[in-house]
């Protein structure tokens, strides 16, 4: 007398014949990385376009409406602007190296 419960359960526990290729994980991880690179490039491109748009709009407004003589003394604050820019970039760099990298290492 056959044990049909066992036969059915054995059948249900059989793996499907389908197997993913040996290089499946390599292909998927490459695909994920390439998608990430593309979306990162798109993001940078949007930032650049946004900055160009803002600067262009600003220049347009200045050239169209403003009295250029009013900006004659602007050259005096260029060193200060460069210094502030360098300071902000430095803080960003130190934040990445000393805080964020450590944070990710701790998480890992």
């Amino acid at each position, binding site marked *: 007398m*056959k044990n*049909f*419960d*066992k*036969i*059915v*359960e*054995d*059948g*249900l*526990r*059989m*793996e*499907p*014949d*389908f*197997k*993913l*290729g040996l290089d*499946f*994980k*390599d*292909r*998927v*991880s490459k*695909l*994920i*990385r390439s*998608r990430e690179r593309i979306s990162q490039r798109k993001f940078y491109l949007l930032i650049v376009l946004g900055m160009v748009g803002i600067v262009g709009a600003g220049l347009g407004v200045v050239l169209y409406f403003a009295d250029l003589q009013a900006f004659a003394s602007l050259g005096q604050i260029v060193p200060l602007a460069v210094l502030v820019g360098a300071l902000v970039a430095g803080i960003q760099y130190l934040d990445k190296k000393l805080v964020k990298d450590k944070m*990710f*290492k701790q*998480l*890992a």
Partner: protein
Amino acid sequence: MDEKQLVATVLSGDEGALRILIGKYERLVAHMVARVVPDDMDREELCQDVFIKIYEKLNTFHFDSKLSTWIATIAFRMAVNFAKKKRLDQVDFDSIEFQVPDSTRSFEDEDLSRFVVKLVDQLPSSYKLVLTLFYLEGFSYPEIVEITGMPEGTVKNYLHRAKNKLKIIIEEHARKEVELV
């Protein structure tokens, strides 16, 4: 490396950890997808899409369940959606007319078990997935409830009805084989 370490390392951008994660769970995803999708090319593509979705959503996983349960949840939803989109489920459980071959090569237990697999292929996707999660992957009732979003009673009902129906067909088939001999 435990689950938490693995997830954190993948999130930090480590490609090796990502490969480990895929390697660890590709069998689970492949089993679920293979039960629902008949074509090998579609199967491979859907498995790929499941892992891309897992990677994209990994930062929303907060260890409220086991990682395997969370991954199975994504695979379940994507497999069911694929079946709906491709109209693979045209019949409901009660109106299935099983295509039973005239004769198996023999009625040894192993051949009958293979015959069961062929019958399972004819079940609606949700039944196939619940059976796979329970019998092949060894998930518990509460885990299957979480994965499928079905009430526990429905999960138990699916398992009970499917197993009974398969058993009846196998019994009838074996009886006919004996009569023929």
